[in-house]
């Protein structure tokens, strides 16, 4: 394990970074300071929404902070773009997307290489090729240069991205979630690579929520939670449990006494509203986001929380149940098993419309693209599901007063300050989310799918939303809560289903599990 040469000037550091996104008013960073020294492997831990990715974007010039400064080699720098950062020796390996799928591996590596004259063929075998070969042999990497990048597995893509950064001689290397990377064959062991880089005097930062990876390589660890730093530790100062507790907002040292939580009804005896039976989705079984042999059911009058890391099947689950993909792709498809939603006689695969007709309501995790049309008015957004019932005396013509009063009703339901004619974008992120929730809840659904419903919201808003969900539940609605925030599940659900790498590791009465136990399961795959 390499220890930081802490007397040195940090290769890259930041001070008091704060950032609130204008588009959705989410405060991603509140006050973060961090130092990355040459020769260290610095792991940055945090749950989804902890502010990791925003911090990295700021460090790599992709975003500008509202407050605070970025310091490179002791000098305050104003990074104007990721390329600016790259020129100054700061490079980042992203989870996806910093390879262009349609280009060959070789083209991806040398894209933008400064020393290559524009008119020379990209396949020129000269100095660039030698440099790339040297990099590959130094680090024991191998790449099929002529292959199209989309034909590679994720490990190959990441390797290509890494080589392209090394070609540019970066001194600060930032890895985003490397445990999902470098997993292909032949496996360049990420831990070995990171060690080599550190020994060469590069500063290595690893952004992850995987504690095992972190603890196996880190020379220092920083934990982020809700946009603030919870402290920087040497590995010997903290253990996995302590770190995971910090990530979830629990004090690190004490074994928490079982909290006093409101007593909830045990799962009702009534027949389930939705049942998943041995569900496996299409895709590579090694891919953590592919669901594998998942079975559970949701009963009327209960809140079942599915917790885990988003990429460990939660997103897939959301798409599968609602039969809706928010992006360009198709919703995930069943490879085995069955999904049954009582009332949806046609069964799966259905489509979203059938899902709704059968009494389903859905708060999507992607609130700005799927959940709202941000440039339209509150009224337009409010009446999405009911507009055809708001017609007046003329068939097909929406009665204005009905539409407005419907919008006002929703606004009043969630008590926000907005007028029906306001453009959605002018509302705060929390108010947008409240309005989406109000719209879905107002349908009085048989089944409510609520995904990441609390993301970026303050406690007051969270409590408020859950009080509404609780009302629905008590009137007999089955609620499926899909969340990557453990404390939300703990505080509000009847039962908790824990996911790890696409498997349902364990399902338990929420009153009988602790945050620690959940953390263990969803981070490490241990079962209770």
């Amino acid at each position, binding site marked *: 394990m390499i220890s930081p040469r802490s007397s040195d000037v940090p290769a890259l550091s930041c001070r008091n970074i704060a950032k609130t996104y204008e588009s959705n008013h989410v405060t991603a960073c509140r006050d973060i300071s961090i130092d990355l020294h040459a020769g260290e492997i610095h792991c940055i831990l945090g749950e989804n929404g902890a502010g990791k990715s925003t911090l990295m974007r700021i460090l790599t010039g992709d975003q500008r902070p509202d407050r605070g400064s970025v310091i490179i080699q002791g000098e305050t720098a104003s990074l104007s773009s990721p390329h600016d950062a790259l020129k100054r020796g700061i490079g980042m390996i992203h989870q996806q997307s910093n390879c262009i799928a349609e280009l060959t591996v070789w083209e991806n590596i040398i894209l933008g290489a400064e020393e290559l004259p524009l008119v020379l063929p990209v396949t020129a075998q000269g100095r660039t090729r030698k440099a790339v070969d040297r990099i590959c042999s130094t680090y024991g990497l191998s790449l099929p240069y002529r292959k199209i990048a989309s034909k590679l597995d994720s490990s190959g893509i990441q390797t290509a991205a890494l080589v392209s950064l090394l070609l540019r001689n970066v001194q600060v290397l930032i890895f985003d979630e490397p445990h999902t990377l470098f997993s292909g064959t032949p496996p360049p062991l990420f831990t070995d690579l990171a060690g080599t880089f550190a020994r060469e005097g590069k500063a290595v930062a690893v952004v992850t929520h995987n504690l095992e990876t972190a603890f196996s390589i880190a020379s220092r660890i920083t934990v982020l939670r809700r946009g603030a730093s919870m402290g920087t530790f040497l590995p010997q100062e903290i253990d996995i449990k302590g770190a995971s507790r910090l990530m979830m907002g629990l004090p690190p040292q004490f074994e928490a006494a079982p909290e006093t939580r409101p007593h909830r009804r045990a799962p009702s005896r009534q027949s389930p509203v939705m049942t998943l039976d041995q569900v496996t989705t299409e895709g590579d079984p090694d891919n953590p986001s592919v669901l594998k042999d998942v079975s559970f059911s949701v009963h009327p009058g209960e809140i079942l929380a599915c917790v885990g890391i988003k990429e460990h099947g939660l997103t897939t689950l959301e798409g599968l149940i609602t039969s*809706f993909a*928010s992006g360009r792709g198709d919703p995930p498809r069943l490879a085995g098993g069955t999904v049954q939603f009582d009332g949806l006689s046609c069964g799966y695969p259905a489509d*979203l*419309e059938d899902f*709704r007709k059968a009494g389903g309501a*859905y708060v*999507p995790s992607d609130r700005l*693209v*799927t*959940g*709202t*049309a*941000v*440039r*339209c008015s509150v009224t*337009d957004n409010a*009446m*999405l*599901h009911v*507009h*055809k019932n708001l*017609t007046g005396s003329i068939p*097909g*013509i*929406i009665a*204005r007063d009905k539409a407005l009063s419907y919008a006002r009703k929703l606004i009043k339901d969630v008590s926000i300050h907005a007028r029906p004619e306001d453009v959605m974008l002018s509302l705060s992120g929390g108010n947008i989310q409240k309005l989406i929730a109000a719209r879905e809840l107002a349908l009085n659904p048989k089944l409510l799918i609520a995904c990441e419903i609390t993301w970026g919201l303050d406690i007051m808003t969270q409590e408020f939303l859950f009080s509404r969900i609780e009302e629905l539940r008590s009137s007999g609605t089955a609620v499926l809560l899909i969340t990557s925030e453990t404390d939300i599940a703990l505080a509000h659900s009847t039962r908790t289903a824990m996911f790890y790498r696409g498997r349902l590791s364990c399902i338990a009465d929420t009153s009988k599990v602790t945050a620690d136990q959940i953390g263990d399961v969803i981070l490490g795959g241990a079962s209770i």
Partner: protein
Amino acid sequence: MKGKLVVSLLILSLTTLLLALLSPEPAETIVRFFTGPFRNIYAFGSFLSSALLLVIAGTGISICFRGGQFNLGGEGQVYSGAAASLTAALLLPLMPGFIAKPLLIAAAMITGFLIAALSGWLRHRFSIHELISSYLTSGALVFFCDFLISGPLRDEESFLIATQRIPGAYTLAQLLPPSPLHSGIFIAAAVAAASHIFLHRSVWGYRLRMFGEQSTFARFGGISPRTYRIMPIGISGALYGLAGAVALLGIHYRGIQGFTAGLGWNGIAVALIAGTSPVMTLYAALLVAYIEIGISSAMAGAAVTYDLGLIVRGAILIVVTLKVLKRKQEELL
């Protein structure tokens, strides 16, 4: 709103500037340009009659934009609509006007709709971009309509490449003789009003707007992607067809080869200036018609060439995009 006024002023001053630069008699030309539509009853009637066609065509394109689509096939759709109407008028047995007129107009609108909807369907089914498919179908249809007029429907007696006149009972009433202003102005007004109600009040208009604004959100709300890939461009096609029929029944009374040329492109210009809102289309159509009549008046009176009209129209399009088009359309294209 303020933006529109700025753009209008910009366009007018640009036109003035171009006239001043390119005309051998700048003063005379500019005076004629600005007073063009008001020099006499005929010019005023022409101004309104060309504006009313632009309202119809531009409204369709506005709706198409709001639905997130672009229709480049206007030239072919107007011409085909007119040709459908013409074919029906000449080949069907003689009918009383009150039956014939709605029938002819419906024929034109259905034809325009089907042609444009084909492009929407191709986009939905095969991901062929409607820009290119609508332009190409239009290219083929223009020649097909040329063929209809110069071939099967041709009036052998005439020295024009033209058909016979449609029966007098089928024509729209003249409102301001000797000018070509006709009762189609009420059709245009109805189109403007109906499209406003459709877009902002009706269930389908709501869905169309949502689909155009954010298709994922619309799909999330259960709005059918197929219907709303076809509907916006289909409506623009139907209104282009209507414009063709109105030009036939109100102004020309006969098919003359190329008699609707230019309306398709001007419709797009109108919609761009209007910034995708049907109400502003009225205003934009008046502006574009004003410029058209102004230039033709300047041409008739002073030695201004035919090319100036092209330069002005081109400059308008280039300037308009700098200011008016919203982000959504940029993404769309």
